[in-house]
C-alpha cells in the first residue's frame, strides 16, 4: 500500500523500518507543494497526522520548572491559543504568523521541525526558549537539544527511520516576543525573524533568529552579555538604553545572512538589529 495512514507511533516506525525510503507526511503544507510542482515524486508515503499520541499538548511538572510537551502533529491553529498561548506566548505569536487559517489548520510543529527550513516560524521561538526534541526510532527514543538539531538548510540530526514525536518547551516566567519581517502580514515567509524570551527566575535572556543563516540561530554571546548588564527584579527586568543598543548590535553580529530572492544579507542583518532592540525594549523597562 503506497500510502500508509499510521494509527500509532509504533505503526509509523514499523512502516518506516519496512520502507526506509518512504516520505513522512504530517500536515502536507510543505510536502504537497513540492509534489504538486513535480519537484518530488514519492513512491511510498507514511501519514502520521492522525496518530493520537502525536496530537496532544500537555504540561509536565509544576509551575516552576514546568514543561509544555507538544505532540509533533499539533497544528499551528492549536498553538495559537490555550495552553501554549498562556505558557509560551512567543510560540503562539509565531504560530499566528504562519500562512493563513487554512495552512495553520493543517501545518504541524513536527513538520516545521522535520522540514528544518531556516524560515520555519516556530523554530526561532524554540531556540529562544531552549526547547528539546523527543524523537523515536527503531532503537527507541532519544532527546535532542534544539541547538543541536539543525545541521544545515532543510537538514537535521534526525536519523533515517526516526520521527519527531514531541517538543518539550520549558515554561519561562517573563516577557516574550516574536517579530517577523515580510512583504505583508498574511501568507508570508519570513525575510528575517526574531524570538526573545526573558526568564525572570533564571535571570536569563534567550534569542532565536530565523531566515538569517543556514539554520535557525541562537545569539548566546549577546544574551549572556545583556543578562549580566540587566538589573533583575521579581516581576520585571531593567535595561539601560545604551545597553539595549549594544545588545541589538551583538545579536546582529550573530546573524549569518545571505543574499537571495527575498532580501539581501545587509538588509537582513539590519532587520535583525532593529528587531533585537525593539524586542528587548518591549520586554524590559
Amino acid at each position, binding site marked *: *500500500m503506497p500510502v500508509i495512514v499510521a494509527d500509532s507511533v509504533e505503526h509509523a516506525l514499523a512502516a518506516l523500518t519496512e520502507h526506509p525510503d518512504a516520505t513522512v507526511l504530517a500536515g*502536507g503544507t510543505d510536502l504537497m507543494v513540492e509534489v504538486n510542482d513535480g519537484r518530488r515524486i514519492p513512491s511510498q508515503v507514511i501519514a502520521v497526522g492522525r496518530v493520537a499520541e502525536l496530537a496532544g499538548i500537555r504540561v509536565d511538572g509544576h509551575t516552576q520548572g514546568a514543561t509544555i510537551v507538544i505532540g509533533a502533529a499539533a497544528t499551528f491553529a492549536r498553538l495559537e491559543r490555550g495552553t501554549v498561548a498562556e505558557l509560551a506566548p512567543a510560540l503562539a505569536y509565531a504560530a499566528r504568523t504562519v500562512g493563513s487559517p487554512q495552512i495553520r489548520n493543517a501545518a504541524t510543529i513536527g513538520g516545521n521541525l522535520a522540514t528544518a527550513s531556516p524560515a520555519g516560524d516556530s523554530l526561532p521561538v524554540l531556540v529562544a526558549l531552549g526547547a528539546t526534541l523527543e524523537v523515536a526510532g527503531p532503537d527507541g527514543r532519544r532527546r535532542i537539544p534544539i541547538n543541536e538539531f539543525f545541521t544545515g538548510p532543510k537538514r537535521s540530526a534526525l536519523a533515517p527511520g526516526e520521527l519527531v514525536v514531541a517538543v518539550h518547551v520549558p515554561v519561562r516566567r517573563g516577557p516574550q516576543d516574536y517579530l517577523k519581517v515580510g512583504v505583508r502580514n498574511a501568507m508570508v515567509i519570513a525575510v528575517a525573524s526574531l524570538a526573545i524570551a526573558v526568564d525572570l527566575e533564571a535571570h536569563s535572556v534567550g534569542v532565536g533568529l530565523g531566515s538569517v543563516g543556514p539554520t535557525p540561530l541562537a545569539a548566546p554571546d549577546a544574551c549572556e552579555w545583556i543578562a549580566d548588564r540587566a538589573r533583575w527584579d521579581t516581576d520585571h527586568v531593567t535595561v539601560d538604553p545604551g545597553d539595549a543598543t549594544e545588545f541589538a548590535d551583538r545579536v546582529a553580529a550573530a546573524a549569518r545572512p545571505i543574499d537571495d530572492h527575498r532580501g539581501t544579507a545587509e538588509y537582513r542583518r539590519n532587520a535583525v538589529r532593529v528587531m533585537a532592540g525593539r524586542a528587548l525594549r518591549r520586554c524590559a523597562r
Partner: protein
Amino acid sequence: MSEAYVLHVNGEEYAVADAWLGESLLYVLRERLGFPGAKAGCEQGECGSCSVLVDGVLVCACLVLAASAVDAEIVTVEGLQPAERGAMSDVQRAFVETGAVQCGFCTPGLIMAVHALLDQDPEPSDLVVREAISGNLCRCTGYGRILEAVEVAARRRSGGPDGAGAGGARGPGR
C-alpha cells in the same frame, strides 16, 4: 499507482481507483469524482480557492494528499447547498445579494471559509472576519463587498434585521 481507496465526500462514499499516490484531494475531487467547486489556483496553499472542510476543519484541498484522507468527512462547496437544485446556502445568498461575486473563481473557497467562520463564531468582529478570509485571494472585488456579505450573513444568522437592502451599498470603507 495506488491501491483503490474510499473517500467520504458530502455524505457519500466514493471509490478512487487507478490513482497516482501523489494526487492531491483537489485533483481527485475535480478530475475523478466530479466536484469542480473547489478551484485549482496556485496549488501551493497561497490562494485559498480550493478550500474544503476535512473533518470540519478548513484546509486547502491542494495540500491534502487524497489517499491520506480516507476515513475523513470531506465537505466541498457542493455539499453546502440545500437539496433543491439551484438553491443557495445563506452565505452564498449574501454573496450574490451584496455583489461579492465578480469573476467567481475565488468564490467557492471564500464561501467555505465564511461557513467555517460563522459556524464557529456567529457574530465575528471585523478584525476576526478579515483574519478568517486572509487565506483567500480575490483579485476582483477589493474585498469590500465580501466583508459586507459576511456581515449580512452573520446578521441574518443571529436573527438581526434582513440585510438584503444593502446589496447596492458600497463595501465598508472603515
